[in-house]
């Protein structure tokens, strides 16, 4: 009954048109302005601007740090998810709620809190302010929930019979994890780290106070764009912004693919 369906929720042209219009105003046209600005001087000029040493160093550093974020989150995120699902201890529900805090806490506050404790006046004997370690820490703060929240539901659904069967056949804990649990977690884990990776590539608020913003040392891509908006170079800012846009979009498509893979795994 296609006719009935159409009447059920208004005409497709109307709702689709409204959705597209809204999206154009808020997302498409502004991004088009960035692309247009970057393309101002032609293709050759774009590469020249986007691929200068400072921009390249910023991108390299961003990827390095995002890689670190992926590595750390893969381990700690899985461990946290496992603790929340399989372990039991007093205050577990509080821990479960706290994991979401980075989603709700403003990023500038995240940066400030890390600087307060791990900065020069923190009093714990560590000073990561204005170092790559500091930036990494800020990125770890804001990406903490991603892997936990993608792996946790899979772990809950996971049938424990297989693990018990394996154990009764004499398999060690590590073997069980590696052969039975891990393959089931993998798609969710990958989509979690991909989300964390995407977030780490673009993060700004959490790193601005802690990075101290030294070109070639702590200047990540978002800071590069910010600095170049500030220093009268909208073309340079736009060029790197376009690269970041392409990276974000690619990552989103990857994550979409991973999600589909994960659902296939489920069924």
């Amino acid at each position, binding site marked *: 009954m296609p006719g009935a369906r159409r009447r059920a929720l208004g005409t497709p042209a109307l709702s689709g048109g409204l959705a597209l219009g809204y999206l154009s105003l808020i997302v498409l046209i502004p991004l088009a302005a960035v692309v247009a600005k970057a393309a101002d001087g032609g293709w050759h000029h774009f590469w020249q601007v986007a691929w*200068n*040493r*400072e921009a*390249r*160093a910023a991108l*390299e550093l961003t990827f390095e740090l995002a890689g670190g974020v992926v590595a750390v989150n893969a381990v700690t995120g899985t461990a946290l998810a496992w603790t929340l699902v399989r372990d039991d201890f007093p205050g577990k529900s509080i821990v479960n709620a706290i994991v979401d805090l980075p989603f709700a806490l403003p990023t500038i506050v995240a940066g400030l809190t890390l*600087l307060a404790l791990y*900065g*020069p*006046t923190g009093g714990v004997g560590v*000073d990561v*302010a*204005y170092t790559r370690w500091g930036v990494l820490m800020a990125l770890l703060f804001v990406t903490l929930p991603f892997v936990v929240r993608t792996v946790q539901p899979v772990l809950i659904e996971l049938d424990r019979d297989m693990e018990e069967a394996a154990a009764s056949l004499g398999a060690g804990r590590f073997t069980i994890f590696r052969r039975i649990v891990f393959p089931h977690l993998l798609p969710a884990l990958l989509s979690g780290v991909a989300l964390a990776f995407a977030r780490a590539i673009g993060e700004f608020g959490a790193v601005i106070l802690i990075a*101290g*913003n*030294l*070109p*070639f*040392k702590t200047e990540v891509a978002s800071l590069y764009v910010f*600095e170049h908006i*500030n*220093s*009268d*170079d909208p073309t*340079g800012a736009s060029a790197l912004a376009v690269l970041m846009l392409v990276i974000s979009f690619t990552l989103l498509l990857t994550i979409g693919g991973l999600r589909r893979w994960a659902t296939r795994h489920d069924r």
Partner: protein
Amino acid sequence: MRKLLIALALVALLIPSAAGAARKDTTLNVVGYSVPTSVYPKLFAAYQATPQGQGVKFTSSFAASEVQSKAVAAGLPADVVNFSLAPDMERLVQAGLVAPTWDKNQYKGIVSRSVVVFILRDGNPKHIRTWDDLVKPGVQVVFPNPFASGGARWDIAAAYGAELREKKTPAQAQAYLKELFQNNVSQDTSARNALNTFLSGKGDVLLDYESDAKLAQSQGKPVFYLIPKATIQIETPLAAVKGNNSDAAQQFVNWLYTPTAQTIWAQNGFRSVVPSVEKEFSGGKHPQFPFPPDLFTINYLGGWDKVNTQFFDPTNGIVAKIEQGLGVSTGG
């Protein structure tokens, strides 16, 4: 859900329009570079106590000079602007926002002066006294980003000029700048941010405005400052912006040159441009603003137009080249 929406609508009604500034009184928006952030509130209060200032309200925004200048050019509402250096004002003249005659008053449009100083940690553990000490191995130097901060440009102009004063050739002075950048450990967006970076423990020496040094001391921070033998005189331009409030803005601008206002500037670490006030603070046995033996102005280096092109062009300037060159060794 409907209740939620109604509640949200009620909240919206209860919040008086925060962004709308349409009131009966005049509200002047002052857009400034970062260093006088803490002076302006005092100036506002003093002005509001004068007959002409009654009923005038103020809002303000302070950030790196070039950031602010560009923002005003891009449409940031402003009635009065105070930048770190003249080219940032010229940008607004080009944009038709500031009258080309802004520098035609008896003070040449300069509302306050300062000098570039070394801010050092108490006890001076690295024994830093001269420009040459800054480029010794292991000395960590902090100054802001020269592509955003006017203060950083004054710092670099001071360093370069001081080398020339020591009879170095331009090539040697450029080599000195390169070494200075090698020892640079942080480049913040504004002079204010750089001061913060330094006060939170980073680096051995900060190149900064004398007024920032005095501010840090008044905050009880464990730092002191030295005025190097040769250094540059900082001159910060002020102007009213064209628009609905330009008369009120011009009145405030004029008032900022009165002895009352200039005294507030001086009490907060800035060198006055009005001779009577300047004499009061620079004279006597313990002058608050001693003059270094070899003080030069930007004209010694050929003026800002020349210096900006030569040093701070984002792709071909000497500083851009130095930073790109350093990228090879520090980017890995």
